[in-house]
C-alpha cells in the first residue's frame, strides 16, 4: 500500500489507541475518582491555596459561567496591553515592535477564545515574552477553559437531578495539571529532540552554500507547539505554522502533532460516556463524529492527490498530487489529512497553505468548520454537538409521539429557545460577516486602511470570495486557520473578526451550559418503552441528518458562489 496513505491510517489508529484510555482517565480525574496521577494532589493544593480557591465549593451553572467569564476577562485586559507594549518588555532579542491597537484587540481575543487566528507573523510580530506569557499561556488556559466548561456540562447529567455542578476552578486547574501540562511535556520533548528549537537565542545569520546571507528566526518554540496542538489552539510560533521546517521538522513530528491535536477532543467525547455512565451513548456520538470526519476526509485526500487540473492542463504531471503550498516531507495525503483534522477540530494549525488547496478541499474544510463538532475543539466540540443533539432530540421526540426528553429530562420551550439562538448564531456571524466584507470590498475599495479593501484578496473571482468566507467561518468556529492570501491585518478584519471570535466562543459555551444546567435541575424521568433511546444507530442517523441538513441549508448559497463555482469552472476548463 501507498506509504502516504499508510501514514494517515497509522496516525488515526494511534490517535484512537491513546484517546480511548485517555477518555476513561479524564472521566475519573474529573469525577474525583482514584487515578494514578493523584500524586499531584498536594501540588494542586498549593495552587488553590495561593489563589485563594476552595475547590470543594459547589457552583450552580450560573456561577460557573461567572467564574469562567471573569477569568477570561482578566486575560483579555492583561493581554491587550502586553501585546501593545511588548517592545518595552524583556525577552525581545529580535527587537520586534509593539502591536497596533486593532491588531492587539484581534490577537488577544483570538487567543483567549482558543481560536488563534493570526493577523501577524510570529517571527516579526511577537517577542519571546509575548509568545510565552501571552500566547503559550493562553494555549493552556483557553483549552482548559473549554475542557472545564465541558465537565460542567457532563456534571449536569451525571446525577438524576442536580443543581450543584462542581467547582469551576477545580476542573480548570485539573485540566492543566492532569492533562495539558504532562502531555505537553512529552510532546515538547519529542519535538525538541527532532529539531524544534527550545533555547532563547535570537535570530541567527549565516552565509549559504551559494553565498547568500540568510537570517534565521528561532526561539523556544517546542513547548508552545506541543500545547498548541494538545489544546486545539493552532497558533504557531512561526508565520507559516506547522508548515515551517523548525515547527514541524519531519514526518514523525507531523504525525505527533496531528495525533496530539486529536486525542483530547476524542477523549472528551468518550469521557462524557464514562462520566455519565452511558458509554454506549458516547460511542454513538463518537461514531457519528467519525463518520462525519471520513466523509470530509476522503474526498479531500482524493482531490489533493488528484492534483490541480489547471496545472495538469499545462502539461505538468500530477502524479505526486497538488503541491502548491505543501511541503515535500509531508506530501499531499498527510497535508489533506491534517487540513481535515485541523478544521473539524478547532485547531486551525496548518502544515500546508489551505488557500492553495483544491477548490473542493476548501469546501470540505469550510464545511468542517461550519459544523464544528466532528470532535470539535477541546471540550467545546461536545458542547457544540450538544446543540445539534437537542434539536435532533426535539424533532425525533415528536416523531415517536412523546414530548422530547434528553437523558431523562424534558426538553421544553426554554431549552429549545437557547438551542435555536445558538443554531442561529453561526449563520448570522459567518454570512453577515462575509456579506459586509463583500460589500466593503465592492463599494469602499479605496478606504484608507492598512490594507486597502481593493487589495484584500490575493486571488480573484470565486476563490477571492472563498478567502473572505473562510476567514469569517474560521473566526466563528474559533478555528484560526485561514486562506492566508487575505490581507487581514487592517482595522476592518481585525475588528470584525474580533467580534465574531468573541461571540462565536462565548455564546456557544454559555448556551449549552445553560441548557444543561436547566435540564439537570429538572425532574428525572425514567426511561420506558416509549422513550426515545439516544444511543441507537437510528438516533445517530437522525443527529447526523440534522447536522448535515442544518449546515447545508445555511451555507449552500455561499458555498455555491465560492468553492463550488470555482470547482465547476475548473472542471469546465479541463473539458
Amino acid at each position, binding site marked *: 500500500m501507498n506509504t502516504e496513505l499508510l501514514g494517515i491510517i497509522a496516525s488515526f489508529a494511534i490517535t484512537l489507541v491513546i484517546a480511548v484510555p485517555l477518555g476513561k482517565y479524564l472521566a475519573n480525574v474529573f469525577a474525583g475518582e482514584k487515578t494514578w496521577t493523584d500524586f499531584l494532589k498536594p501540588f494542586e493544593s498549593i495552587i488553590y491555596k495561593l489563589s485563594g480557591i476552595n475547590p470543594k465549593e459547589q457552583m450552580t451553572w450560573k456561577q460557573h459561567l461567572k467564574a469562567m467569564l471573569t*477569568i477570561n476577562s482578566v486575560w483579555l485586559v492583561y493581554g491587550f496591553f502586553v501585546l501593545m507594549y511588548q517592545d518595552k518588555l524583556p525577552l525581545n532579542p529580535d527587537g520586534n515592535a509593539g502591536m497596533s491597537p486593532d491588531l492587539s484587540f484581534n490577537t488577544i481575543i483570538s487567543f483567549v477564545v482558543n481560536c488563534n487566528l493570526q493577523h501577524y507573523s510570529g517571527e516579526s510580530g511577537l517577542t519571546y515574552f509575548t509568545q510565552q506569557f501571552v500566547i503559550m499561556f493562553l494555549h493552556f488556559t483557553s483549552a482548559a477553559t473549554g475542557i472545564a466548561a465541558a465537565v460542567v456540562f457532563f456534571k449536569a447529567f451525571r446525577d438524576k437531578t442536580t443543581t450543584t455542578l462542581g467547582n469551576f476552578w477545580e476542573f480548570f486547574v485539573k485540566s492543566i495539571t492532569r492533562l495539558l501540562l504532562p502531555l505537553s*511535556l512529552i510532546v515538547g520533548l519529542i519535538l525538541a529532540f527532532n529539531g524544534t528549537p527550545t533555547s532563547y537565542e535570537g535570530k541567527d545569520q549565516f552565509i549559504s552554500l551559494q553565498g547568500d546571507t540568510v537570517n*534565521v528566526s528561532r526561539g523556544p518554540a517546542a513547548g508552545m507547539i506541543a500545547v498548541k496542538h494538545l489544546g486545539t489552539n493552532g497558533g504557531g510560533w512561526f508565520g507559516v505554522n506547522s508548515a515551517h521546517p523548525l515547527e514541524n521538522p519531519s514526518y514523525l513530528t507531523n504525525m505527533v502533532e496531528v495525533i496530539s491535536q486529536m486525542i483530547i477532543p476524542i477523549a472528551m467525547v468518550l469521557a462524557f460516556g464514562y462520566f455519565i455512565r452511558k458509554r454506549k451513548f458516547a460511542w454513538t456520538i463518537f461514531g457519528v463524529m467519525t463518520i462525519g470526519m471520513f466523509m470530509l476526509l476522503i474526498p479531500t485526500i482524493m482531490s489533493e492527490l488528484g492534483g490541480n487540473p489547471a496545472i495538469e492542463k499545462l502539461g505538468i504531471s500530477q502524479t505526486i498530487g497538488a503541491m502548491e503550498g505543501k511541503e515535500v516531507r509531508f506530501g499531499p495525503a498527510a497535508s489533506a489529512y491534517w487540513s481535515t483534522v485541523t478544521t473539524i477540530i478547532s485547531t486551525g494549525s496548518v502544515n500546508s497553505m489551505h*488557500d492553495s488547496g483544491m477548490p473542493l478541499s476548501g469546501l470540505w474544510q469550510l464545511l468542517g468548520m461550519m459544523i464544528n463538532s466532528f470532535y470539535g475543539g477541546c471540550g467545546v466540540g461536545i458542547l457544540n454537538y450538544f446543540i445539534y443533539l437537542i434539536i435532533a432530540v426535539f424533532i425525533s421526540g415528536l416523531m415517536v409521539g412523546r414530548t422530547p426528553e434528553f437523558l431523562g429530562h424534558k426538553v421544553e420551550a426554554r431549552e429549545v429557545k437557547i438551542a435555536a439562538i445558538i443554531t442561529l448564531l453561526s449563520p448570522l456571524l459567518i454570512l453577515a460577516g462575509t456579506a459586509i466584507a463583500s460589500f466593503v470590498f465592492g463599494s469602499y475599495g479605496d478606504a484608507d486602511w492598512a490594507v486597502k479593501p481593493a487589495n484584500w484578496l490575493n486571488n480573484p473571482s470565486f476563490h477571492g470570495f472563498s478567502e473572505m468566507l473562510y476567514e469569517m467561518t474560521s473566526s466563528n468556529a474559533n478555528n484560526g486557520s485561514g486562506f492566508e492570501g487575505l490581507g487581514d491585518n487592517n482595522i476592518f478584519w481585525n475588528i470584525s473578526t474580533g467580534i465574531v471570535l468573541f461571540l462565536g466562543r462565548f455564546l456557544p459555551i454559555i448556551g449549552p451550559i445553560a441548557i444543561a444546567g436547566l435540564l439537570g435541575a429538572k425532574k428525572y424521568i425514567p426511561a420506558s418503552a416509549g422513550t426515545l433511546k439516544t444511543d441507537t444507530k437510528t438516533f445517530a442517523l437522525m443527529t447526523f441528518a440534522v447536522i448535515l441538513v442544518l449546515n447545508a441549508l445555511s451555507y449552500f448559497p455561499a458555498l455555491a458562489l465560492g468553492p463550488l463555482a470555482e470547482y465547476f469552472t475548473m472542471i469546465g476548463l479541463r473539458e
Partner: protein
Amino acid sequence: MKKYILQSIRLTLVLMVLLCILYPLTLAFAGKFSKGEGSGEKVTKNGKTVGYALIGQSFTNPEYFWGRPSAVGYNAAGSGGSNKGPSNPDYLQQVSDRVDTLLKYHPYLKKSQIPSDMVTASGSGLDPNISLEGAKIQIKRVAEYRKLDKKQVEKLVEENTEKPLLGLFGPSALNVLKLNLALDELKR
C-alpha cells in the same frame, strides 16, 4: 463577583509561574541535549555554518540541485507560501513560466516528466526537500555542469534519499542542502 475577580488574578499569576517559566525552562534545559542544543541543527562546511539542516535555501546555480520555488525567496527570518488559489490565472502563468525556465535548463526533459513540486511554491517557502522525481530530472544537468559521470550523481541521489518513516509511513524526499553539500564534497 469580586471574589471571582480576585481568584482569577491570583490563579493567573500562579499559573504563569508554572506555565510560562517552569515549563519552557524545563524544555530548554532538556533541549540542550538535542542535536542543535536547542537552537536548531546547523550544517557546516569547512567549520563554517552554511545553513540549517531543516531550512531550505535558495539554489539557482546550475551546478547545484535546485530546491522548490519559494514565495519568500527562502527568507528564513520570515516564512510564507504563495497563497495562490488553484484557478488563479496569474498563478497559472507563473507556473507556466517556471516550466519554461526548467525546460530551458533541462532541454532533454519532456513537460510530462516534470513533477509538480518543482514548479509549485512550498507552504513555508523554506521547504528543505524535493521529491525523488524532482532530483532525478536534474541529474543530467548537474552532471553536465559539474562534468561528472551521471552514474556518480545518480548514486549520490540514491544515497541521500530519505526513505519513508520506518519504511512505511509518508513520502520519500531529498534534503537539497545535504545533497548539494555531498556534491561539493564529491568534487573535491
